[in-house]
């Protein structure tokens, strides 16, 4: 049994259920309790649902301290870029605490960060900056593309004993999808085959999964069978599922909204080049954002970003197909 809800509601559902299940789960953010009618505030009260000032560094650091003391804070940061203000806290403090203390402490906390508001929000609010965090030791990074995964990964994130950076995509917030009823968790480090196929493996990350699925659907009408894989978490990253798919399809295209050299695509390309080279019949192709800030103006914004057409061109090139007229 399942129910259909938007991506954002699925995330909220996970947080609510985990707060019901475990009193140690706390919820912090700058607009957390704007009115007394706020559903979280009403249900869980002002001790557990707390408004924070515009102080990302202190918000995340404070959550670290509470986590060390046994609580499980969820910090709502709104735009992912705002946590860049607190980069030290995200990268170099709580994330290293467990290791450097010989495991004496652990830091079970979740940082929720929205990314990719590519609807004219311009240079400082549209980045797909998740790639910057996938090489941070001690930090797990979740990147859901569907409501069901969003709920399941949030559940897992809250239950995990490590700091988790949970990236939600702004353009997907209202997208509806089926979410399993009852308790629902999705394991970290397990990719999901979103569409089975035999001619080529297409890996999307976060929002780009949607782009990949659209391209696969269009290509299917031309008789091209594309397998679409969603890693779902990028730290840990499930390379095996991708390798076994490539072993069958022998072709790999990667789609990622991040800038090329800060993309998950670049990491996957390197892994497959090293571990799956003999499977490949064509070069790996990365369809990413250009290495540029994202412009405000629509035509320039679109120019920088990957889209269905760019993916289809890359698939055609990989398979040696003549480009379809568009």
């Amino acid at each position, binding site marked *: 049994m399942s129910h259909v809800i938007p991506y954002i509601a699925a995330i909220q559902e996970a947080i609510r259920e985990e707060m019901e299940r475990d009193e140690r789960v706390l919820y912090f953010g700058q607009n957390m309790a704007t009115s007394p009618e706020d559903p979280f505030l009403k249900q869980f009260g002002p001790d557990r649902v707390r408004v924070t*000032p515009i102080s990302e560094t202190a918000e995340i650091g404070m959550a670290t301290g509470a986590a060390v003391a046994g609580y499980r804070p969820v910090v709502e940061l709104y735009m992912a870029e705002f946590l860049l203000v607190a980069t030290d806290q995200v990268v170099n403090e709580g994330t290293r605490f467990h290791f450097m203390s010989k495991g004496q402490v652990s830091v079970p906390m979740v940082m929720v960060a929205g990314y990719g508001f590519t609807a004219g929000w311009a240079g400082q609010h549209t980045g797909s900056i998740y790639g910057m965090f996938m090489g941070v030791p001690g930090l797990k990074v979740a990147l859901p593309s569907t409501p069901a995964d969003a709920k399941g990964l949030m559940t897992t994130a809250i239950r995990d004993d490590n700091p988790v950076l949970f990236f939600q995509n702004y353009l997907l917030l209202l997208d509806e999808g089926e979410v399993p009823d009852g308790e629902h968790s999705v394991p970290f480090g397990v990719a999901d085959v979103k569409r089975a196929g035999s001619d080529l493996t297409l890996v999307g990350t976060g929002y780009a999964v949607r782009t990949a699925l659209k391209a696969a659907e269009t290509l299917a009408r031309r008789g091209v069978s594309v397998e679409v894989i969603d890693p779902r978490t990028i730290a840990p990253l499930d390379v095996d599922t991708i390798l076994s798919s490539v072993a069958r399809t022998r072709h790999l295209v990667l789609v990622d909204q991040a800038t090329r050299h800060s993309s998950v695509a670049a990491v996957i390309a390197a892994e497959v080049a090293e571990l799956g080279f003999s499977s490949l019949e064509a070069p790996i192709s990365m369809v990413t954002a250009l290495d540029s800030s994202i412009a405000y103006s629509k035509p320039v914004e679109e120019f920088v970003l990957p889209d269905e057409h760019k993916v289809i061109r890359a698939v055609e090139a990989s398979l040696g197909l003549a480009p379809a007229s568009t």
Partner: protein
Amino acid sequence: MPGGAAADPGSQALDAGGAERLLATMWRIRAFEERLEPLKRSSMVHGLTHLSIGQEAVAAGVCTQLRDDEPVYSNHRANGHALAKGVDMGRLLAELMGRADGCCRGLGGSMHVVDVAHGFLGATGVVGGNLPFAVGSALASRLLGRERPAVVFFGDGAAQTGIFAETVNLASLWQVPVVFVCENNGFAEFTPRSAHTRVERVSDLAAPFRVAARTVDGNDVAEVHRVFADALTQARAGGGPFLLECLTHRLSGHYVGDPGGYRAAVEDEAWRARDPIGRLVRQADAAGWFDVERSRAAEEAARDEVEAAVAFALGSPFPDPGIPAELTYAR
């Protein structure tokens, strides 16, 4: 340049001419933003639109006293600051419409307006992100032997950031000519100030750093003008940093289309009675400077200028989709 930044106005007390200039500037901002709202709602303007309706006295009282080589840094709520500093209205609107003739070629948009020629060194979408830029500008001016003050606008919400304290401390330590102008509208997005801090006044934060500070009625343009004039005179004379807190109120949402639920707690009606434009007209009447007819004329001129800006912006093409290499890195 009606109501825009003047070449070297000096910082004398307000007179009839000065009051008229402030009136014209406030009307230009008001008329621009009142037109911007429907343009945004009909998607002619895209991205995020933050209006400053009700807060015009701060932008006008401050920016009209600055020279072009005295830079202003702004935040996400930038339209008023930009217009008052002399940014061309048509080029500003073209930017907000993402057009090629925008002051940043449509690449920056509403939170990233920059116009170096008029000393408008830009907005930022990250709260507090550019506070220290102003200290750097002021330092450079000191090193160049010019003592041209830099001004940075910020909201009451920004005062809770770490970068704020770091910046004020540095400005104080080096005694550089910078004026921090806080627009305290009592809200950060949808959250009242009382939920973010127990500090009553942003100006209270200056004392421990030994930075001079004043809190003024930010809806009284004459008062903003007078106190900022003093701060500017001091800063130009090498007197170091100053923090000016302007108590004000935004009469519309955090951004156009915000959910607005929190506004039940907002005393819009009381604040409407303190509308900065009406206040100035009443003061001018009492002082014998001008009457409401003059205000109507200023309003009409502003609305005409806005319509011309709309025509200009609509007539401007969208920029070519490419990213010129010279914009990725400076050469």
